[in-house]
């Protein structure tokens, strides 16, 4: 295989495996497939986004050599940016809520990233607000800002979506987790070109009370790259349902995935029940490794064990 001859780990980003999930499918007439994004070099789909955003900024000339990067991220995007930044020679600062799991912080530090904590009680919106403020105050920082960077959905248009379109002759439903909206917008658009009747379905986290941390609804945040009118379904998934999905994936298909993947599986099963027949593709954004220290795996009350953190 030519992949064995890659000159850089960055060349190993993308071209992830697509595997059928026959034991998980609720009926033989519905074929379920999973795109295993945990197989990317740092273990998540965000490798695609980080590489695309940095390359786009280098190409446009916005990102001069050695300039410091700043990004609000509670994990995967930061880790992916840390990899790309290290190999391309940029220092990196990540802004993240103080209650992010230790594995993520440790990995970021090992890659050489600096971490700035935003208040845990302000959740991810707090990290976004703080990062925007820091970037405004210090113009020497370059913020890729995955929420508004067109290179994010484009990475999924050119990569994730194109790879699925090349691998399958038919796709009726695409299910992916909703975070920035990058996967759903980019892969959704690319797959709609090949399969015009496709339904693009988002699995969205039901946040715990304590992480909503907003003084008013006006403090809410809708990522500029997300156009909800391009989604056909937008399904709310609780933490309990996500973990149930993770356990099914492990027990039936032997796949150890991250929390958002459990939500994607839950949503995919809901959609599959409604179909008489068809092909459903699930994008599983990361592996389960970065969640091993989390309490929910062994907790009787999964909801309580999860409600104080943001999971995707």
């Amino acid at each position: 295989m030519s992949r064995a001859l890659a000159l850089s780990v960055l060349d190993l980003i993308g071209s992830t495996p697509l595997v059928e999930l026959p034991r998980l499918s609720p009926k033989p007439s519905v074929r379920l497939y999973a795109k295993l994004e945990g197989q990317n070099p740092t273990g998540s789909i965000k490798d695609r986004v980080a590489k695309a955003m940095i390359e786009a900024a280098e190409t446009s000339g916005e990102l001069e050599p050695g300039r410091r990067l700043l990004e609000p991220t509670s994990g995967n995007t930061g880790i992916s940016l840390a990899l790309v930044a290290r190999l391309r020679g940029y220092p990196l600062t990540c802004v993240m809520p103080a209650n992010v799991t230790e594995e993520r912080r440790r990995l970021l530090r090992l890659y050489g990233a600096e971490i700035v904590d935003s208040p845990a009680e302000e959740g991810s919106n707090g990290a976004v607000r703080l990062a925007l403020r820091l970037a405004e105050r210090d113009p020497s920082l370059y913020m890729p800002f995955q929420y508004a960077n067109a290179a994010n959905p484009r990475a999924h248009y050119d990569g994730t979506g194109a790879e699925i379109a090349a691998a399958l002759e038919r796709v009726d439903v695409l299910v992916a987790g909703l975070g920035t909206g990058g996967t759903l917008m980019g892969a959704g658009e690319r797959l709609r070109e090949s399969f015009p009747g496709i339904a693009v379905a988002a699995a969205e986290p039901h946040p715990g009370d304590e992480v909503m941390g907003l003084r008013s609804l006006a403090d809410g945040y809708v990522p500029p790259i997300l156009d909800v009118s391009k989604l056909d379904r937008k399904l709310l998934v609780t933490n309990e349902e996500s973990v149930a999905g993770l356990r099914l994936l492990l027990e039936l298909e032997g796949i150890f995935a991250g929390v958002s993947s459990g939500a994607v599986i839950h949503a995919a099963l809901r959609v599959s029940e409604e179909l008489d027949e068809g092909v459903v593709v699930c994008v599983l954004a990361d592996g389960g490794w970065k969640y091993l220290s989390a309490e929910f795996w062994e907790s009787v009350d999964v909801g309580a064990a999860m409600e104080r953190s943001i999971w995707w």
Partner: protein
Amino acid sequence: MAAVRIPPTLRAEVGGLRELEARGETVGAVIEDLVERYPPLAGQLISEGELASFVNVYLGGEDIRTLDGLDTPVYDGETVILLPAMAGGV
């Protein structure tokens, strides 16, 4: 009657309740019923006759923006969930 779940950011406007009951045959009518009883909610939920952009409303666990919006029919005993729009995408 539909059950309506209120997020922490809106509880002050409804006397601290986490959940309350409201009447209406559509999501829009359920929200109107709420706003009549708790007028401070109006500015938070509705903007120029449309659902405010920073609020998400779910019926049966599905965002009404991918259903029929405020015209989405509500049946007795269903649960409407109100949530703030939040940045995800770790």
